[in-house]
């Protein structure tokens, strides 16, 4: 260890102007001189934690007062009031005045900065046109998203303006690194007949179909002021303005006109407009209106009333105007200090309730129950409940498939024994490998003269016990081969695939090997196909709560109220990282980003999907996960051949789920489609 640095004794005495007050001195250095806490620690001859304590103390004693500048606070106050009054999800208010940039540029920049919260990989984004939209598209910086499609919300306009629908959408697509889908037609056509003809054009019909799958729309709004976008775009001429149907119009969004309550107006343009209609727009999940300026108050208000907006981005003057028009008094919106939150009750459940009799009997009794429930599928080998065989007849010359591992993964292992699956299974205690003699009796039982294939997860204990069994089998003249499953991609880097652990991907590997053996393929081929299946499987697990074993009946570890574990296996252990709890869609996004990257999943690829509960997570949540997974796969044009959803490989009562994607070629598809009959998978 290096000797501690000598401190200058004089330096540790505060300069005179601070009196003897170290709090004032530390505060001065921190807030006025801009030193870091460690620099201050050096100068004061104190430790960094002491400096930190001084600074906290200085705030507590009122030596330092921190206030948010009035302008900013006002912005936040207006935003909260608009959110509450109109019941929208989010409102972002930029200061009405500020700096050199125009309001339009500042709104565009604010919207661009919000995009990472609004857009996600796999989204289809529509954008309308106008000055604000172009400013937005220009301001977007790399959001690190994949498989995003940008679609034009409407057809094209006159090229006399720079902010056409094509310009806004192409610019946004470039900024996001997304694919661009245009609408190859004008926004307003000359007659309803022309529109019908155009919609029959296959190219245009296909383009318009993209509007059905839009997940996020970014739109501006036009007032009906003489130089507003709707006029400059050239499709609201003076004859139309006099048309009775538009007498009550207050604004236009995506080329459609609305009245002050947001109701759509069906004038002569309605049947001549090519683009997203108002009902379609309202069904888009995320609808972001970016607009500001005094003339925009009535149309924004109308759009809010009409339910077209989930996120509003505007400036403080416009926001105040909107609230004033609704009769909301801003002065009453004085910031209130939120009541102190009551201290959180510690949820320290020390004992987990379980349906067990004696902890030591849990595995045996569970197997007795399984044998009673599935007498057509499994039976004990030689009276041992921990070595089970398939009831199906096994022809001479068929390769035996023996699987196994610890208990606690139910229906794991035993549920995948049967025709088209494994021939026998060796089971251990909870999360512990079976010992060699049990594996050996499975091996003898499954051997039909063609050798035996062992398939199990890559864990130290299993490898030792199965290897010992393989030696014993060899001594009896039974040839064995071993395939270790290593599908959990979070457990080790791609460069060290062989070190990964086997988790839910087991299910697909057992299936492929079982199908290969049912086809009477020789041991070498069964081994090759099982290896190929394992290499095709990619799994990531996430846990919300730990599990507890029958023996301890205590949580195996703890996960904070607002945390989750990313990259967990199937033994109730912590994950590779602990991260903040997120929504289901964001969890799936994180999993997909990792898996897609490693699989190099290309458009047109075919996959099998397994959305697996780790025990306590219900089907309802698995379905929600699968919903987003399907979005992500379809956004990448990946074909889902088969989906399994449910409890397949669990970690006792852990709350959590895993997602497995298996890349399929013709050979694996055929084996996966073959019939099988285990009590956990019938096909």
């Amino acid at each position: 260890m290096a000797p501690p640095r000598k401190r200058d004794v004089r330096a540790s005495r505060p300069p005179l102007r601070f009196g003897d007050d170290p709090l004032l001195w530390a505060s001065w250095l921190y807030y006025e001189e801009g030193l870091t806490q460690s620099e201050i620690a050096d100068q004061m001859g104190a430790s960094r934690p002491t400096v930190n304590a001084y600074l906290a103390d200085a705030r507590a004693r009122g030596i330092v007062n921190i206030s948010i500048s009035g302008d900013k606070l006002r912005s936040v106050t207006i935003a909260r009031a608009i959110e509450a009054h109109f019941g929208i999800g989010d409102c972002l208010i930029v200061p009405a005045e500020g700096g050199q940039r125009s309001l339009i540029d500042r709104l565009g920049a604010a919207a661009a900065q919000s995009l990472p919260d609004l857009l996600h990989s796999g989204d289809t984004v529509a954008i309308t046109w106008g000055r604000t939209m172009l400013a937005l598209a220009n301001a977007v910086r790399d959001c690190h998203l994949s498989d995003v499609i940008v679609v034009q919300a409407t057809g094209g306009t006159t090229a006399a303006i720079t902010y056409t629908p094509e310009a806004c959408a192409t610019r946004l697509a470039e900024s996001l690194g997304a694919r661009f889908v245009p609408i190859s037609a004008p926004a307003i056509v000359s007659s309803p007949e022309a529109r019908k003809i155009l919609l029959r054009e296959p190219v245009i019909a296909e383009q318009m179909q993209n509007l059905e799958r839009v997940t996020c729309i970014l739109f501006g709004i036009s007032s009906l002021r003489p130089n507003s976008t709707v006029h400059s775009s050239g499709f609201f001429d003076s004859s139309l303005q006099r048309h009775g149907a538009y007498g009550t119009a207050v604004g236009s969004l995506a080329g459609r006109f609305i009245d002050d309550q947001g109701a759509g107006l069906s004038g002569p343009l309605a049947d001549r407009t090519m683009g997203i209609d108002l009902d379609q727009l309202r069904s888009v999940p995320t609808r972001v209106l970016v607009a500001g300026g005094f003339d925009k108050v009535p149309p924004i208000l109308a759009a809010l009333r009409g339910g077209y907006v989930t996120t509003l981005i505007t400036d403080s003057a416009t926001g105040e105007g909107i609230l004033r028009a609704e009769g909301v008094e801003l002065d009453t919106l004085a910031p209130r200090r939120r009541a102190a939150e009551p201290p959180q009750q510690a949820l320290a459940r020390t004992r987990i309730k379980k349906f067990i009799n004696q902890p030591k009997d849990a595995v045996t009794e569970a197997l007795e129950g399984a044998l009673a429930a599935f007498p057509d599928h499994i039976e004990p080998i030689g009276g041992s409940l921990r070595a089970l065989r398939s009831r199906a007849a096994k022809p001479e010359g068929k390769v035996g498939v023996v699987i196994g591992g610890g208990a606690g993964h139910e229906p794991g292992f035993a549920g995948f024994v049967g025709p088209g699956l494994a021939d026998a299974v060796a089971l251990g205690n909870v999360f512990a490998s079976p010992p060699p003699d049990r594996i050996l009796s499975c091996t003898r039982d499954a051997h039909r003269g063609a050798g035996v294939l062992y398939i199990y997860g890559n864990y130290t204990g299993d490898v030792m016990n199965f290897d010992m069994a393989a030696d014993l089998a060899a001594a009896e003249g039974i040839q064995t081969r071993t395939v270790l499953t290593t599908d959990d991609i979070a457990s080790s880097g791609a460069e060290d695939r062989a070190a990964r652990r086997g988790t839910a991907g087991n299910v697909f590997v057992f299936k492929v090997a079982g199908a290969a053996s049912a086809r009477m393929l020789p041991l070498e081929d069964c081994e090759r196909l099982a290896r190929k299946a394992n290499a095709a499987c990619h799994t990531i697990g996430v846990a919300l709560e730990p599990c507890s074993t029958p023996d301890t009946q205590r949580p195996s570890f703890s996960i904070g109220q607002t945390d989750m574990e990313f990259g967990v296996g199937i033994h109730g252990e912590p994950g590779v990282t602990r991260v903040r709890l997120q929504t289901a869609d964001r969890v799936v996004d994180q999993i997909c980003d990792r898996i897609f990257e490693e699989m190099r999943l290309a458009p047109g690829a075919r996959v099998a999907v397994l959305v697996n509960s780790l025990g306590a997570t219900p089907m309802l949540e698995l379905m929600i996960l699968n919903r987003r997974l399907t979005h992500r796969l379809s956004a990448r044009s990946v074909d889902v051949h088969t989906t399994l959803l449910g409890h397949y490989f669990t970690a006792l009562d852990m709350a959590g789920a895993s997602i497995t994607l298996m890349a399929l070629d013709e050979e694996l598809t055929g084996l996966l489609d073959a019939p099988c009959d285990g009590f956990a998978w019938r096909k």
Partner: protein
Amino acid sequence: MQAIDNKGAGAIVSEIATAIVDNKAYLSEIDGKIGDGDHGVNMAKGFGRAADRLDPAGTLDEAMQVLSDVLMSEIGGSMGPLYGMMFSDMADSIEGAEQIDAEAFGKMIRAGLEGVQDIGSAKVGDKTLLDAFSPAVETFDAATAEGKSFAEALQAMKAAAAEGRDSTIDMVAKVGRSSRLGERSRGVLDAGATSCAMILGCFADSIGNRLA
């Protein structure tokens, strides 16, 4: 020359089993932090069953062979084969001996260490039971080579095992289930090293009591 009778030393294995069963919850708790939390449960199951079956009045090698058989054929997991092999090789090394002196004990634990190294793939520093076992064996040999008594060498071995066990706190696991956690495995004792230090400590104390 200090030595104990082999006959009647079967009781030493009973004492080891008692220590393991008593510490079942502690061992599982350590394991739960970075493993699957079953170490204490499986160890207690194996050692407890062996204690019921062995003859305390019999020889140490017979008792260790009973323990090995239970661990190997009924316990599974990774500890079943590892400790199973260790006790089997230790039993072989003293089989038929009338008395066990420092030399015989030194050979016995060396055989156990080699048995574990044969079957497992770990090295010292990988955060496994070897981190307690290996320095304990080296220390015992060094102590007897310096001319220390059997009793003194046993206490030196016990201390080295405990020190080795504690050294696993700062290690990152390289093999076994906790190795998937990478850096997150740092800061926690290894459960295998903990149970190994417990077993060696028991040997030291119970042989020491017989020598006194």
